[in-house]
């Protein structure tokens, strides 16, 4: 619990609150003074947010997007970790699959969304595929590093007590690599959310990205900003929660 409070405290410190307040003030005045169509005042955006939220318009897309995100992430974690572990353990797997993982890590995955649309159609499968494409490579890379970076002294110790290859994986490599797995999870979640919104904006009819497209097309700027605000908060909360989970797991096991 004290860890949770400290984590929350990081966001409630005076310098951050001051810069947040200044941003809000500049936004509000810029939106009021100039007659800029593309920048409504913050108060109007917040009003739109409250209006949308209480009318329930946001609830269905939020849930819908979350289910797609979790489905994609689950597949990424499962398959990405398995491939990463294989690459980390086996020279052959590394040579055979490593280049694809490296390419996938740096390639602009958004270019694949039209392909996914052709394959899966305008449906949830397309954005799930986008979530996977955005997140799976970073999960695999970190999983490979996790099992590869084990202290050789620990491996030698386990072997001397008769542990075989699989026992060493389960007892030594995986637990020793936990910080890397958690880093992969954190980066995977962040990239997965990017993929989710990217996919939804392109698909245009579902989830939070669909709302961005909908309000953007009709120049409903206050509602557009309200949805963008929601997406930024949504991503921050997810990444924060995973970071926190990682810290709790790691401090729990090595005081």
């Amino acid at each position, binding site marked *: 619990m004290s860890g949770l409070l400290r984590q929350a405290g990081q966001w409630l410190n005076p310098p951050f609150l001051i810069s947040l307040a200044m941003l809000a003030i500049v936004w509000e005045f810029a939106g009021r003074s100039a007659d800029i169509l593309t920048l409504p005042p913050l108060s109007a955006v917040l009003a739109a947010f409250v209006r949308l939220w209480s009318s329930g318009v946001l609830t269905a897309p939020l849930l819908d997007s979350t289910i797609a995100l979790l489905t994609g992430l689950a597949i990424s974690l499962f398959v990405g970790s398995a491939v990463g572990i294989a690459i980390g353990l086996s020279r052959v797997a590394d040579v055979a699959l490593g280049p694809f993982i490296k390419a996938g890590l740096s390639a602009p995955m958004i270019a694949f969304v039209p392909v996914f649309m052709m394959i899966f159609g305008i449906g949830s499968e397309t954005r799930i595929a986008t979530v996977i494409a955005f997140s799976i490579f970073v999960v695999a890379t970190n999983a490979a590093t996790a099992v590869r970076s084990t*202290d050789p*002294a620990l491996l*030698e*110790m*386990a072997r001397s007590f008769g*542990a075989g290859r699989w026992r060493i994986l389960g007892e030594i490599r995986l637990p020793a690599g936990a910080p890397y797995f958690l880093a992969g999870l954190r980066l995977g979640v962040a990239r997965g959310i990017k993929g989710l919104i990217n996919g939804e904006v392109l698909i245009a009819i579902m989830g939070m990205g669909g709302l961005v497209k909908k309000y953007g097309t009709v120049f409903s700027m206050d509602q557009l900003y309200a949805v963008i605000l929601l997406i930024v908060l949504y991503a921050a909360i997810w990444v924060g929660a995973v970071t926190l989970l990682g810290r709790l797991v790691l401090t729990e096991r*090595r*005081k």
Partner: protein
Amino acid sequence: MNANATPAIAVQDVSKFFVSADGRRTRALDKVNLAVERGEFVSIIGPSGCGKTTMLKMVGGILDWDEGSISVMGAPVSGPGPERATVFQSFALLPWMTVLDNAAFGLKMRGETKAARHAKARNLLETVGLADFANAYPGELSGGMQQRVGLARALAVSPNVLLMDEPFSAIDAQTRLILQTELLDVWSQTDLSVLFITHAMDEAVFLSDRVVIMGARPGHVTDVIDIDLPRPRTEETRRDPRFVELTARVWDRLRGLMTDERAGAPS
């Protein structure tokens, strides 16, 4: 000691080659012969690069050799085995496990139930004076305490042969002296045979029945010195003129190797 029994460790004419990156074969160990009788405490000392740790790993079954034979308790070595346990220089404790689970790790690898291995591990933590730290994590302990856990983990599997790879070299000098005495206390209550690698001459003399001196390039046995100091050895032993004399003799031999090494080193 049973004179009729085969030695606890028998190393015969063992050679080992390393292949360097440019494909050249270098002889790392040259026809090493070594025997540790049952219940005997033998140390290997030598300059760095003489292959003493390589030797220990081969006896432990985690490193192959190229020529010769190694057997432990009369059986040829073909991998790690339940009759051997190793104590490591870097302690090699698992930081995510409690002291108790670390001490029980070897038993876990041997498939013992949780209750059985915890009971044995608790016993050995008691033996090494760490009963109160069973639920602590290694990171909370001093180096000396961590190596006591390493010793408990090795003893927990009830080995016949204890292999110790410079176990006290990462520990401060005062604590090291205390651990040496504790190790002899524990050993004297068992019939363990010990092969102990060290680079500290006083440590080798204080602990051992025999000190094996190895030279480098390639690694080979140059001398074996019998340590006829009476047991049990105590703090008094360190002031015994015979202890001082034997330590000086080990140093004489080692110093000879160091000068040989300097003279023979490629410039």
